[in-house]
């Protein structure tokens, strides 16, 4: 009996922990300017990617990430994740790695063959939110926190329903001359 008496508070704490993480609404505070003064304006900011944001389990962050994915027209090249000019994001093939830091670097610094650098154009918090959403497209995040369907034409199953696709890191294609 005492085993279950100890178990009860433990599982209450872990339930509340994961619930708190999933449900927290953190509205971004102004962050200090990352770029030293001497740099001229438009140069892409060489920023060391901070540790992965807590977004993997946070529903609000991924929901914002999904909104920004459409607001910043990522769908223009990646479609709804199925891929178009840009590579597919909901499959298991990752050209530059599937870890949050890799995706963060891809967004901030851009990639050859057309991926623009969004440094300075998307704030770090928003970038982490987009990273979390991109990972949720292939089921790499907690499904209870992943976003549901959109009030839009259903392009694919909601992210919360997509099963986990273990990422295969393929070699990056040779840059075209």
């Amino acid at each position, binding site marked *: 009996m005492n085993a279950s008496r100890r178990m009860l508070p433990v599982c209450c704490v872990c339930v509340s922990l994961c619930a708190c993480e999933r449900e927290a609404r953190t509205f971004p505070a102004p962050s200090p300017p990352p770029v030293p*003064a001497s740099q001229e*304006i438009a140069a892409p900011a060489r920023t060391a990617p901070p540790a992965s944001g807590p977004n993997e389990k946070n529903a609000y962050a991924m929901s914002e990430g999904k909104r920004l994915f459409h607001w910043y027209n990522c769908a223009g090249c990646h479609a709804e994740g199925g891929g178009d000019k840009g590579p597919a994001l909901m499959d298991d093939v990752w050209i530059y790695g599937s870890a949050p830091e890799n995706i963060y670097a891809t967004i901030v610094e851009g990639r050859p063959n057309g991926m623009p650098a969004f440094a300075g154009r998307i*704030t770090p918090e928003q970038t982490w939110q987009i990273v979390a959403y991109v990972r949720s497209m292939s089921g790499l995040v907690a499904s209870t926190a992943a976003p549901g369907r959109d009030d839009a034409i259903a392009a694919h199953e909601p992210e919360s329903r997509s099963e986990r696709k273990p990422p295969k890191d393929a070699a990056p294609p040779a840059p075209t001359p």
Partner: protein
Amino acid sequence: MSALLPAGPQAAHVAALWDVMLVVTGIVFVAIVAATIVAVARARRGAADAPSDAAGATAGEQRSHRIIWAAVLASTVLLAGLVVASAVTDRALASLPTDGALRITLTAHQWWWEATYEDGGVHDRFTTANELHIPVGRPVLFTLAASDVIHSLWVPELSGKKDLIPGRVAPHAWRADRAGTYRGVCAEFCGYQHAHMALLVIAEAPDAYAAWAERQRQPAAEPADDAAKRGRDVFLTSTCAMCHAVDGTTAQAQRAPNLTHVASRRTIAAGTLANSPANRAAWIADPQAIKPGANMPPHALRPEDARALFAYVDTLQ
């Protein structure tokens, strides 16, 4: 801001109906409360153990029944009258003449209003946000749509509210007969900043409206001094251009309010702050402090870039 100080025919009809309703229901309320008080006051005080005359005098019973029937009949007649009054007001509201109306497509977003004026030809169209100038005496015909959740347009002095529902387009018409600034609100709970989603309607003389509209149609003026020029470059190369549009520049994103003439508006952030350089700077620096949950992130600019940006925004008259 009161539904009882109408500045247009629509609100006036309803204010008239309100007076009728207030009088009729007031009389009925006083009558019922008075009847209750008198009934309790005059009824013979029953001692605790007084035996109950269950049978009750039949004569008195008949009289009670007749009085009750009379009262019910009176209530029914009054209610029928109120239904007629309501229907008459409804008809009056529906018969607002809308020929020569000013057409505006109003789209509600999470937590601001986008207005596209379709007054005249296609090239006369212009888009503004959170502030409507309308000519006095000329009807305004809205086409209401919502881009995300359900909102509700309500300017008490001008007209009753109308919901903006995603997936539907609803017509709505009113007319301002008195010049003035009328504050409207979103009346349907729509998320974190439902409280700060106001709308300013400025009814002014037709020529003043025409001048304003003409100014709105012009693209943004070329910034004069170099601080403003540098500010424009900052605007175009940082987070601002990802969502905002300024006509006459390459920034054409439609996700956030059109800023071509933002400095000329009376308020910013959907009626939350009075429009002044200081308020604009405070809002741009940290919008989440003023409207927590709004979709505008705080900027990550260096202080001198920020100052240049503020200087540029000041030129967007």
